[in-house]
C-alpha cells in the first residue's frame, strides 16, 4: 500500500522491535492482490495479439482480433455490455440518492435500511434466479395475474433473456442498491449531513431538494469508487448474465466464457481478444461516466444557484421510496420463490402454490449439496482467513508506523474490483496451465483472495482507525508491549468489526463464480458453480435447493457475526455495541 508519512503515533522504542516482520505485510498483501491481475492481464493481451504457443501460434499478427471482429454478434454484444452496465449503475445510484434524499433519518428509512443490509450478502446468482422465478411469463407475478386476465397458460412474452438486457439490468439494480446504500451510509458518517440538511430546511428547502443540493455532492465524492465498481461489475458480469441475459447473442462476457470452453484451442485466442475488448469497453464507460460527472456537476450547480426549494419533492419522495422498496421486495420475494420451488411437488401454471410440498428435492440433492457446501466452506474460510491476517497486519503496520492509506493506496485497493474478472481470469488460467501448475483448490483460494482482500480491508479499515489510540497509550503505560496491546486490548475491543469483516469476506468468497470455474478447472465445485451449472437444465427444484443453500452459506456468517460478540461479552457490558 502507498502510505504517506505522518508524525508517528506510537512510541519510538516499541516501533523498532515490531517493524521487521510487519513491514513486509503490506507488500505481501499488494502482491497477493495485484500479482494475479497483472499476470492475468499479460496472459490475456499476448494471446489476443496472436501469441499463444500452446495452440501453436506465435505470430503477433492480430489475427484473433480480426476473428473477433468477424463474429456477427459482436456489435450487439458490445452494445449490451455498455447499455446494461450504464443503465444498471445510473438506476442504482438514482434510487439510492432518492431514498436517502427523501427519507434519510425517518422511520421508513430505518426499516428499509434493515431490509436492505442482509440483501447485500445474497449472492448475485441466487438473486438472479429468484428474480427469474418472479418475472418469467410462467413466474409468480404472472400466476397471480392469470385469473384476473384469464390466462390459462403463460403468455408468449420475451421477458427473461430479452435482447435489450432489461431483465439483466433489473437483476443488477436489485443487487447493487443494497451495496450502494451501505456505502452511502458509511460515507454519511463522515460528512456533516444532518446539520447541512437542517440549515437547508431552515432556508425553506424541501427535505429531498435540500439533501440533494447540500449533502449529495459530498456523499458522492466518497462513494465514487464504489460506483465505479458497480459500473465495471455490471458491464462484465457472467453468472447473472447467464441466468437473465439475452442469448441471441449472449453478452460479451458470456460469449468470452463460451469461447474459452470451445474444443478448438484457437478459439481461446478469440476469447482473449474479446477480453481485451471488454477491458477497453469498461475503461471507456468509466471515462464516459467521469465525463458525465462533470456535466451533472455543471447542471447541478446551475440548479443549486437557481434556488428552487423543491417543487418536485412531492412526486420524487414517494417515487424514491417505492423504487427502494420494490428493489428490496424483488430480491426477497425471489428468495421466497426459490424456497417454494425447492419443496414443490407438481406445480403447474397458473397455480399460485404447488399441489404438494415435499422434501424430496432436498433429500435427492443432499449428498451433492453437502459436498459442494464443504468445498465452499473450505475455500471461503481459507481465503478469508488469509485475507484477515494480511489486513490486520497491514492495519497494525499502518498504526505502528503512523503512515496512513493514501488516495493512491485506496485506488490500488479498488483495482481488483475495477478490472473486469473476465479480462484477466482467462489469462491467468492459461498461464497456470502453461506453467504446469495444477489447477485445483490452492489456485482457487488464491484467486478468491484477490477479491476477498479488498472487501475485508474496506470493511475493517474504518472501525480499526476509529479506535481511540489513547487505549494503547494507557495499556503501554501499564507495561504492555505493542503485541499485547494488539491481542489483549485492541482485537477484543474490535471483535465485532473483525467478525463483520470476516462475514463480508466469507460472503464475497461464497458468491464467486468465474474464479472458481476458470481457475478450478472444473474440479472445485462450490454451491455457486453448481447452481449456475444447473441454470442450463432449467430444473427449478434443483436450482431452488442450490440457491437456497448458497444464500444460507452467505448469510450464516453474518448471523454469527451478530451473535458471537453478544455471547463472548455477555459479562462485559461495556464491550457491547
Amino acid at each position, binding site marked *: 500500500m502507498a502510505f504517506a508519512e505522518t508524525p508517528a503515533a506510537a512510541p519510538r522504542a516499541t516501533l523498532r522491535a515490531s517493524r521487521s516482520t510487519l513491514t513486509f505485510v503490506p507488500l505481501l498483501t499488494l502482491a497477493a492482490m495485484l500479482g494475479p491481475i497483472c499476470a492475468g492481464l499479460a496472459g490475456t493481451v499476448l494471446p489476443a495479439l496472436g501469441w499463444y504457443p500452446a*495452440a501453436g501460434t506465435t505470430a503477433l499478427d492480430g489475427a484473433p482480433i480480426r476473428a473477433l471482429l468477424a463474429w456477427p454478434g459482436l456489435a450487439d454484444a458490445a452494445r449490451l455490455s455498455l447499455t446494461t452496465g450504464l443503465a444498471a449503475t445510473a438506476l442504482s445510484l438514482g434510487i439510492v440518492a432518492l431514498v436517502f434524499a427523501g427519507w434519510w433519518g425517518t422511520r421508513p428509512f430505518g426499516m428499509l435500511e434493515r431490509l436492505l443490509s442482509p440483501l447485500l450478502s445474497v449472492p448475485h446468482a441466487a438473486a438472479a434466479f429468484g428474480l427469474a422465478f418472479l418475472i418469467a411469463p410462467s413466474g409468480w407475478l404472472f400466476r397471480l395475474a392469470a385469473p384476473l386476465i384469464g390466462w390459462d397458460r403463460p403468455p408468449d412474452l420475451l421477458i427473461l433473456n430479452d*435482447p435489450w438486457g432489461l431483465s439483466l439490468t433489473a437483476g443488477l439494480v436489485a443487487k447493487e442498491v443494497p451495496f450502494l446504500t451501505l456505502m452511502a451510509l458509511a460515507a454519511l458518517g463522515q460528512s456533516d449531513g444532518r446539520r447541512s440538511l437542517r440549515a437547508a430546511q431552515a432556508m425553506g428547502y424541501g427535505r429531498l431538494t435540500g439533501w440533494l443540493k447540500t449533502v449529495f455532492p459530498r456523499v458522492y465524492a466518497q462513494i465514487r469508487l464504489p460506483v465505479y465498481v458497480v459500473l465495471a461489475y455490471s458491464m462484465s458480469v457472467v453468472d447473472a448474465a447467464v441466468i437473465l441475459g439475452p442469448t441471441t447473442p449472449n453478452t460479451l462476457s458470456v460469449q468470452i466464457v463460451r469461447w474459452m470452453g470451445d*474444443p478448438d484451442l484457437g478459439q481461446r485466442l478469440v476469447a482473449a481478444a474479446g477480453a481485451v475488448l471488454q477491458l477497453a469497453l469498461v475503461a471507456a464507460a468509466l471515462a464516459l461516466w467521469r465525463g458525465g460527472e462533470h456535466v451533472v456537476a455543471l447542471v447541478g450547480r446551475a440548479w443549486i444557484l437557481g434556488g428552487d426549494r423543491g417543487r418536485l419533492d412531492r412526486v420524487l419522495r414517494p417515487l424514491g421510496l417505492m423504487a427502494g422498496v420494490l428493489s428490496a421486495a424483488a430480491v426477497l420475494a425471489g428468495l421466497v420463490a426459490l424456497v417454494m420451488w425447492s419443496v414443490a411437488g407438481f406445480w403447474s*401454471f397458473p397455480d399460485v402454490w404447488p399441489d404438494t410440498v415435499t422434501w424430496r428435492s432436498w433429500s435427492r440433492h443432499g449428498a451433492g449439496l453437502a459436498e459442494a457446501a464443504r468445498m465452499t466452506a473450505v475455500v471461503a474460510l481459507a481465503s478469508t482467513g488469509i485475507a484477515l491476517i494480511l489486513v490486520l497486519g497491514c492495519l497494525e503496520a499502518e498504526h505502528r508506523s503512523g503512515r496512513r492509506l493514501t488516495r493512491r493506496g485506496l485506488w490500488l485497493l479498488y483495482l481488483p474490483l475495477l478490472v473486469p474478472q473476465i479480462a484477466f481470469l482467462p489469462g491467468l488460467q492459461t498461464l497456470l496451465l502453461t506453467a504446469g501448475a495444477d489447477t485445483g483448490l490452492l489456485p482457487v483460494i488464491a484467486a478468491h483472495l484477490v477479491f476477498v482482500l479488498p472487501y475485508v480491508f474496506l470493511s475493517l479499515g474504518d472501525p480499526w482507525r476509529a479506535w481511540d489510540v489513547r487505549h494503547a497509550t494507557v495499556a503501554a503505560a501499564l507495561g504492555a508491549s505493542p503485541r499485547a496491546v494488539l491481542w489483549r486490548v485492541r482485537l477484543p475491543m474490535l471483535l465485532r468489526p473483525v467478525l463483520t469483516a470476516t462475514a463480508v469476506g466469507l460472503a464475497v468468497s461464497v458468491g464467486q463464480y468465474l474464479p472458481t470455474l476458470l481457475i478450478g*478447472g472444473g*474440479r472445485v465445485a462450490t454451491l455457486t458453480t453448481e447452481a449456475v*451449472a444447473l441454470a442450463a437444465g*432449467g430444473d427449478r427444484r434443483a436450482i431452488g435447493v442450490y440457491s437456497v443453500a448458497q444464500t444460507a452459506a452467505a448469510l450464516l456468517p453474518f448471523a454469527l457475526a451478530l451473535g458471537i460478540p453478544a455471547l463472548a461479552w455477555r459479562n462485559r457490558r461495556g464491550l457491547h455495541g
Partner: protein
Amino acid sequence: MRSLATTCAALALTAAALPALADPDPADWDAVLDEARGQTVYWSAWGGSTATNDFIAWAGDRLKEEYGVTVEHVKLADTADAVTRVLSEKQAGQDADGAVDLIWINGPNFKAMKEADLLFGPFAEQLPNWQYVDVDGKTVQTDFTVPTEGYEAPWAMAQVVFMHDTDDLPERLPNMGAILDWAQANPGRFTYPQPPDFLGTTFLKQVLLEAVENPEVLMHPASDADYDAVVAPLWDYLDELTPALWRSGRAYPASGPAQLQLIADDEIDLAISFSPGEASTAIADFRLPDTVRTFVLDKGTLGNASFVAIPYNSGSKAGAMVLANFLMSPVAQVHAQDPEVLGYGTVLDMDKLPDADRAEFDALELGVATLSPDELGEVRPEPHPSWTTRIAEDWQSRYGTGQ
C-alpha cells in the same frame, strides 16, 4: 563405442516401453482391479440433468462399495469443456495425472479427441462385460460413422423421440413437414434447445435427414463442394419455422431439460428428446404433466450410443476402466433403463445375458410415456461429425446472433 550404442538403444527401448509399462492392461483384469482400489476417478459428464446426476452418484456409491474406487462427478456445462481441458494439458506438457479421468462423450468430441491422440486405449472390447454387448444389433462400434476401435465404451442407447402434451396436441405428427404445419398453426408452442447444445443440433440433423434428397451423402465428410447445396433445404425449413417458434425464435431454451420446464409450465406443447424414457422419468419426478406422450417419425429418427472414454493422461486409468466396465454391467444397465431412474436404452443383447439378468430387464415397467422397442421404429444413423459441426456453426450466425 559399441557399448555406447547399446546403452543408447537400451535407453531408447526403455523410454519407448515406459508409457506402456505404466498403463494398466485391460486384458489382465485382476491386475486392473488391484490397481484401481483406492483410486479417485474424475468423471467429466454433462451436469445439466438431475436424473443423470443421480445415476452417476449411484454408480459412484456402488463402485466405492464393490471396488474401493471413488468417483467424483465433474459437472460440465458442455462436454467440450473436458475436451479442451485435456487438449490444453497436452499442449502444456502435462502428460500424467490430468484433471479428467473419464469423459461421457460421443460424436464430434470423440472424433476430435481420437484424431488428436488424446485417448487411452484400445480398452473397451477387453472389458469383462463386453461379452454381453449387442455388437450386431446396435451402433456400438461406430460413433457418428467414426469407428470406435475400442477407444470408448458404450453405456447407453439414445434415440430421438418427440414429447407432446396430449392436452393440446393429441395426435402424433408423422414427419417434419407436419411439425412445421402444426407449429405455424399454433405459433409459440414449439421450440428446440439453442445450438450448439447437442440436442438442438440433433434437431437440426433430424430436419436435414428428412430434407436432403439422398441421405447417403451425409454419411461422408462434408465437403465445400456440396455443403451449401445439401444443407439449403434445412435453412429453408428453419426460415419458415423460426417465426412460429416460442418467443418467435428470439430466445431458446438452453438445453433439453429446460424444455421440460416449458412443457410443465404449459408454455410449449411439443419438444424433442434424445431419450425414449425421459418423458416417463420426468412424469414420475413431477417435472412433466402426466398428459405427455412420445412419438417417432414415420421414416425413423436419429439414434446413437453414449460412450465413455479415458484421456491418455488420466492418472486413474484402472479406476476409469472399472467404472466403464461397471456401466456396461447388467445391474447398471437395468438401473439406467428403469424409467424411475434414467430411462436410457440398454447397449446389451438380451440373448447373451444370463437368465436371471434378463428377467430383471423383462420385469421393468417402461412407463406411461415410453414407446415399446417395436413402436420406436427405424433408427437412422448419425451423419458424419463434420456435418454436425458445420450446421451448428452456421446456425449460430444465421439465427443465434439476432440477425
